[in-house]
């Protein structure tokens, strides 16, 4: 994914103008997870917590980056989709990691990343293992990191079994974000997912295991909600086991105060050596996932920008720069330089304000030009982040899909076109893959595209448009929509 890398960190960021210019020449970032709601849609204190967190705010994921450190490898449950012996540097999925860190090593790595990636705003501990069970290492890491970077947001992912024992300590450390993985609220279903748990000094199997796990997960959710800690619930969608049941999970976690619900497709492959992989359990299709997400309307807010990243991922959600920051590349002594992150934050504060204003203007214009019952349209966008159309078609490893109608422009999902281990595919093969990826979408906006791929796309019925290069996504998507609906785009939008 190196072509997807933004090197803002290497730029001399001195002013907002310089940064804007740099982004136009090199592009900026890529995007990834959370609610697309802005400050107008939630209480100010909640917006304050999510506005810089790429996983909790879809808008923030255009601007801010996260990093995970794998410091807590011990786990207290066994899941049928996890194999603890598996590890691959080329694989991108939850729980996979190439090296484990000590709390001290992790603290140095965070500083090295913060010095290079000014978008860094969140440090998460998300496996392999369970951050709340392996608590001493989690806590030691957080305590060391905040000494140098007091403004970084701390975040952890857990199955919830051990979490109730540490909620007060989370409060003491000002942790505002916790992800709970909840795959069921019916222990009978749990028996098909969890062969055993380790609890109260015993290995417990069968229904009793899932019963205890379920009770502790609900207790965790209640305790966190009561204390104002934002909870994202992650659920793995497993066809035939919990797919329909997740609708009930969605309602229950909403009732108990979850901020977001992230339904992720099961990743299953015999080569991973998991129980599900070996017994042929399949993952859901994109259509099945979408159907479930649509059915959850009215329940807990869904996160649709999740990239199911690695446990040692670094960067914006759609990219992973983890391989640039392996411990052999992190110096023994490293000093934090806050200037780049500060400059970047100032820039974002202004930039996102302008983007929001531009989006509002585009919405007003569209509402005036298009009848309110006009069909919605899906448009694919190639972006490196920053909320702009700023990626070359040929460099895109994923496309963001936006839905537009008279009510406005909404992020729907992303579609990847770089399925891991595709090394060896030629350019034409890749284009075929992209065309397949874009199924059901007939328009793509990108910063630039060559004549050949544009003609091939056209032959497949997909129009590639580069006229809106470096524009805001919302402005460009709105203009295309108005044009399709019979209203020409204004000159200002094309300029």
């Amino acid at each position: 994914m190196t072509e997807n890398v933004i090197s803002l960190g290497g730029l001399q960021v001195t002013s907002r103008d310089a940064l804007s210019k740099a982004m136009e020449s090199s592009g900026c970032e890529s995007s990834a997870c959370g609610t697309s709601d802005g400050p107008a849609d939630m209480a100010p204190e909640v917006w304050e917590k999510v506005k810089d967190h790429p996983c909790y705010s879809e808008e923030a994921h255009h601007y801010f980056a996260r990093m995970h450190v794998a410091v807590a490898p011990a786990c207290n449950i066994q899941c049928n989709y996890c194999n603890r012996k598996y590890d691959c540097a080329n694989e991108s999925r939850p729980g996979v990691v190439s090296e484990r860190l000590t709390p001290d090593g992790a603290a140095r790595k965070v500083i090295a990343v913060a010095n290079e990636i000014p978008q860094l705003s969140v440090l998460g501990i998300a496996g392999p293992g369970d951050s709340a069970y392996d608590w001493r290492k989690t806590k030691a890491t957080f305590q060391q990191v905040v000494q140098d970077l007091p403004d970084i947001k701390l975040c952890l992912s857990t199955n919830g079994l051990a979490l109730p024992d540490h909620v007060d300590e989370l409060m003491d450390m000002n942790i505002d974000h916790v992800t709970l993985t909840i795959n069921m609220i019916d222990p009978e279903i749990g028996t098909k997912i969890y062969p055993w748990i380790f609890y109260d000094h015993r290995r417990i199997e069968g229904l009793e295991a899932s019963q205890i796990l379920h009770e502790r997960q609900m207790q965790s959710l209640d305790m966190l909600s009561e204390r104002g800690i934002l909870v994202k619930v992650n659920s793995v969608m497993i066809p035939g086991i919990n797919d329909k049941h997740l609708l009930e999970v969605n309602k229950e976690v909403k009732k108990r105060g979850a901020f977001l619900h992230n339904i992720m497709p099961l990743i299953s492959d015999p080569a991973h050596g998991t129980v599900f992989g070996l017994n042929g359990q399949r993952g859901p299709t994109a259509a099945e996932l979408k159907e479930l997400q649509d059915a959850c309307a009215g329940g807990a807010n869904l996160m649709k920008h999740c990239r199911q990243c690695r446990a040692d991922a670094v960067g914006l959600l759609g990219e992973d720069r983890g391989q640039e920051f392996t411990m052999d590349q992190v110096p023994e002594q490293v000093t934090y330089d806050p200037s780049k992150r500060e400059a970047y934050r100032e820039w974002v504060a202004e930039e996102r304000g302008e983007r929001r204003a531009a989006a509002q203007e585009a919405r007003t214009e569209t509402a005036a030009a298009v009848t309110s019952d006009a069909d919605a349209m899906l448009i694919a966008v190639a972006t490196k982040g920053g909320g702009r159309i700023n990626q070359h078609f040929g460099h895109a490893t994923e496309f963001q899909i936006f839905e537009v109608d008279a009510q406005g422009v909404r992020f729907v999902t992303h579609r990847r076109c770089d399925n891991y281990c595709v090394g060896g595919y030629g350019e034409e093969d890749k284009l075929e893959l992209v065309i397949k990826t874009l199924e059901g979408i007939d328009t793509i906006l990108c910063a630039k595209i060559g004549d050949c791929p544009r003609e091939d796309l056209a032959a497949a019925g997909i129009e590639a448009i580069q006229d809106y290069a470096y524009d805001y996504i919302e402005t460009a998507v709105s203009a295309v929509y108005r044009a399709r609906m019979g209203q020409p785009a204004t000159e200002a939008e094309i300029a």
Partner: protein
Amino acid sequence: MALKIVVENCTVCGACEFECPNAAITFADDTYVIDPDLCTECKGHYDTPQCVAVCPVPETCVPA
């Protein structure tokens, strides 16, 4: 009477280290090792050896 860790199976997650009531398990040379002089197989503490119960890989904590 003691247990040992089968190095090829160990994922080095360290769960056994902090569950061991005898502090018999330590990290050394990229793996965890059980000190046979300290290991009691948890007799007097728990019904089952804790390292065996928590280990994610079967046949990893076995009789020495």
